């Protein structure tokens, strides 16, 4: 019998796994068995995750599922090992991972800290100030095309302030209309 995984070496290890009363047998060569074991222990994972994954994989059969463009791992491979291939896998398998993360953690939206470099915020502020100065100069020079481009760039950089600004604008407008009516 050949190893199920590499199909090259003779299978010398016969693994029997029983999950939820269902028995599965695997026939592997020594080297593939080592890899399999390493994948399992590397995960150091809660049995919970493996149970969830195996339950899902039993339902979907042996489908390889979507493939991560960055590292080439398939969702089916992840279901077997519980370990993702690279950070981009989260993008590639987003639709599959969101419900799984909810099952594990009770939620799938991060609410904690985000990485930010100390200098980053002040850099953004400096860039905004520079753009504002350029825009004012463009207006003074009556280069309205450039001013509009700079305004759009500013808006893209400051979404929060931009919203606040646009919500004020209609109020100013309606006040003006009110005056006209009177």
């Amino acid at each position, binding site marked *: 019998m050949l190893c199920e995984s590499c199909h090259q070496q003779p299978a010398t290890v016969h693994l029997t796994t029983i999950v939820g009363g269902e028995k599965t047998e695997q026939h592997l060569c020594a080297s593939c068995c080592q890899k399999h074991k390493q994948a399992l222990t*590397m995960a150091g994972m809660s049995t919970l995750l493996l149970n969830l994954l195996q339950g899902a994989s039993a339902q979907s059969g042996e489908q390889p599922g979507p493939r991560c463009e960055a590292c080439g791992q398939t969702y089916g491979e992840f279901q077997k090992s519980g370990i993702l291939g690279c*950070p981009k896998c989260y993008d590639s398998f987003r639709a599959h991972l969101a419900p799984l993360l909810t099952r594990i953690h009770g939620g799938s939206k*991060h609410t904690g800290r985000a990485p930010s*470099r100390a200098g980053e915020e002040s850099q953004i502020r400096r860039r905004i100030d520079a753009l504002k100065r350029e825009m004012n100069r463009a207006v003074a020079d009556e280069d309205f095309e450039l001013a509009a481009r700079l305004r759009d760039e500013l808006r893209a950089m400051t979404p929060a302030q931009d919203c606040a600004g646009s919500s004020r604008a209609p109020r100013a407008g309606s006040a003006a209309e009110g005056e006209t009516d009177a």
Partner: protein
Amino acid sequence: MPKFDPAARPPFNPFDGTSPEADVVLTSRVRLARNHAGMPFPGFLDPETAQDSIRLAAEALTPHGLTLMRMDSLSALQRQTLAERRLISRDLLKTPERSAVLVSGFDSWDAPPDVSGASGNTLSVMVNEEDHLRVQAFVNEFNLDEAARIAFEADQWIIEKTSVAYDEEFGYLTACPTNTGTGMRASVMLHLPALTWSGEMGKVTQAVSKLGLTLRGLYGEGTEAQGDLYQLSNQVTLGRTEQEILEDMRSAASQMMDWERKVRVALHAGDRITLEDRLMRALGVMEHARKISAKEFMQRWSCLRLGACMKLIPLKLSVLDRLLTAAQPASLQQSAGETLSDEQRDARRAAMVQQAMKE
């Protein structure tokens, strides 16, 4: 022989140099899982990229005083010693050719740091374990906030120098989805002899799991609770902020402390002679035996620690906690300066225990 009598305390103080929670808590730890963006997770790294991952970690952390140790440059004994000091996990030892650790507060190989405070707190960053970076900060008391402060300081050093894998929806991205989100695992090491001996641990484990927390043995997942030592840690890492997780941990650990203390009092009130007999027998063995195996050491050590907390056995907790690391197999051989057979180790352990008890 000193007798346990709360009204007439013997003149020694077992808590000398320790915090008020030291009767139950040995250490607090905060661990952060971080990965480099645009690089496969460690399980899928080719040897060259694995070295890149080590280089990036070293560039971010060595300027802050951490020392880089590549696993393949250490002897088997040295690696084991780091694991016994909990500076690295046993998983890191499985792939020495591509993994490393950066540590601060590391004095020397043969003088184990004083677990209960003297040498201060410890920071270690494992490279290419399950994730590219695993920051671990240890504090030798019940103080998760301080452990978190140290861990997040190191986190900032990493963020300043490297691009960390992060997603607006999922937070910090980790190789295993059980760590995704904050990537933070906070843990408190608890000594729970009374709960263990009275058969209450089943109930404790159940209560803990309802809170999204878990109890593990001394060296983490899948290890035995030797010496009646348990690690309480959070399971949930996504959907809750770091502060919320730390608060949950603090309150659960406080409840377990109260629970353990109540059972200690109950055991003493219920059958004082049987309890004291158990503790004093341990003292007899530790004081006089010529050979003590690692397993026996852990059992007797637990008795001595409880006996000291009850002021029945005149030993300082700081001495006992230092022994806990020093008497482990690799640390023992490291301080002996040679590889020892099992029998030699047991003899040396007994001698070391007796030496420490004279302090």
